[in-house]
């Protein structure tokens, strides 16, 4: 069978993806440190500032995370046809069909892939939209915790999360969403790559996916 190369993921989307990966990893590690600092310093007068450094890196990664999410939201509206929100959600008959095909395939009921489709499958699409929503809450709680005295963030923070302690609790809880997401995401990418020859893993590096030439 002859396969054809198709350009699917724009540079901006790939940049978004890798910014998100690096920021989430950094945020989780520094976040764990900030919650439960594992260093045991008793040296005085050294000026090492481990907590200060961790918090600064956390903030920096938070801004990268924010930028990445804003780029993805931009692409949801103005991206190419594989990146737009209408391609991610089960709102068209094509997408609803894909969703059931994907769910059947994931539960090993049959082995068919929607070969015509180049973008995300709709199960992934729904989870990605949910992830962006969680990310928005994560950003808002993060800014509320970082800028507690700002009138703007205090107003929204109290409305959305409650006190600083509520926000902190929910911020920490949502981190676990991203950790579980990462596990399942990586597993399903490998699973799909083993099952289907469309080049799903390399597509996030190169932007290209493959499908049989017979499909137009």
């Amino acid at each position, binding site marked *: 069978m002859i396969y054809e190369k198709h350009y699917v993921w724009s540079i901006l989307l790939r940049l978004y993806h890798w910014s998100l990966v690096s920021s989430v990893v950094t945020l989780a590690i520094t976040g764990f440190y900030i919650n439960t600092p594992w260093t045991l310093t008793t040296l005085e007068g050294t*000026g090492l500032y481990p907590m200060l450094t961790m918090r600064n890196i956390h903030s920096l990664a938070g801004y990268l995370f924010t930028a990445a999410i804003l780029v993805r939201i931009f692409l949801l509206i103005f991206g190419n046809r594989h990146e737009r929100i209408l391609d991610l959600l089960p709102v068209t008959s094509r997408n609803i069909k894909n969703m059931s095909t994907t769910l059947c395939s994931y539960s090993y009921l049959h082995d068919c892939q929607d070969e015509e489709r180049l973008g995300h499958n709709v199960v992934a699409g729904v989870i990605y939209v949910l992830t962006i929503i969680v990310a928005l809450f994560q950003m808002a709680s993060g800014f509320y915790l970082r800028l507690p005295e700002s009138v703007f963030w205090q107003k929204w923070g109290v409305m959305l999360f*409650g006190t600083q302690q509520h926000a902190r609790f929910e911020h920490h809880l949502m981190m*676990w969403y991203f950790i579980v997401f990462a596990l399942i995401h990586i597993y399903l990418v490998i699973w799909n790559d083993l099952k289907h*020859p469309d080049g799903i893993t390399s597509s996030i590096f190169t932007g290209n996916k493959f499908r049989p030439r017979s499909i137009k």
Partner: protein
Amino acid sequence: MTDTAQSTDLNLQVDRRGFLKGCTMVAAALGISEAMIPKLVEAATSAQRPPVIWLHFQECTGCTESLLRASHPDIGRLILDIISLDYHETVMAAAGHQAEKSLHDTLDKYAGKFLCVVEGAIPTKDNGIYCKIAGRTAVDILAEVAPKAAAIIAIGACATYGGIQAAQPNPTGAKGVQDLVSGTPVINIPGCPPNPISFLGTVLHYLTFNRLPVTDNLGRPLFAYGRKIHDHCERRAHFDEGRFAEEFGDFGHRNGYCLYKLGCKGPETFSNCPSARFNDVDVWPVSVGHGCIGCTEPNFWDTMTPFYERLPNVQIPGTSGITDIDSAGKTILGVAAAAVGIHAAIGIGKKVIKGCGCKNENKES
């Protein structure tokens, strides 16, 4: 301040020196210029200052105790001296019908002019029968007094956000004043107990400028609750440097290191404790080696507990099990990993049984 700390006399009058000193302290707490101190003094000594009705509901009287007793007689007496207290169950001489008469006289005579201070939560369940004074429920008393007051000052964690009575499962349906009163301005002075300076500052601000001080989104005056404890804490340098007390009495604790890992809630609590301090001897919880418990924040009994952990515990859905947030997270991650493992095993098993699973690959082979 040392002279007042050592003072043990029981003279009920505030001398002029103590009076001016108290006004100066309040001006400092309010963050207003020293040029305004004469105006504060003038307002505090004015003959036309409004009377105060002090209502006690579900509370322990700790707020009153901390205001009046403590070790700073000047501030305590200053409060009694400045405000014309017409009704206060703890300190008034009258009792029974006399006391109730005094309350109603003030309500009639000074309607729309008096200040109302509320201490304690208001139980609303079962028609409010869990707190009754002179045969009437707290809900009824507040409903009668609140509309006639010029402003209401809710003092303490209970009157502001319900306090310990409102902690889960809140058996009496206790609520704070701001949830029950509309139409009359309410200002919150939370804390368990709050610093007397914060209360006095609010009262003097009202007497001097004829309006309540600016508040944050939770109704607390910004002059006292505008900054996080963590940002003014004397142990902050140890926090940034990563020097923590790991347990009570260890090396770090004895050397004054940060109490963060002992569950100090300073990073999520707004109050002037590190700058205003307590008891005229310049102490506050963190300075004497115990973490902040976040008593100025709404529902702190529910959200700040366990007091010696950083974050609240989580209820495992569908069970009565309670665990800390990271154990819950690890459990969810473990379940997800197990699901992934089972999913992968089924895939491999199917492939072993059937040979090749995919239609495309079948075509190719």
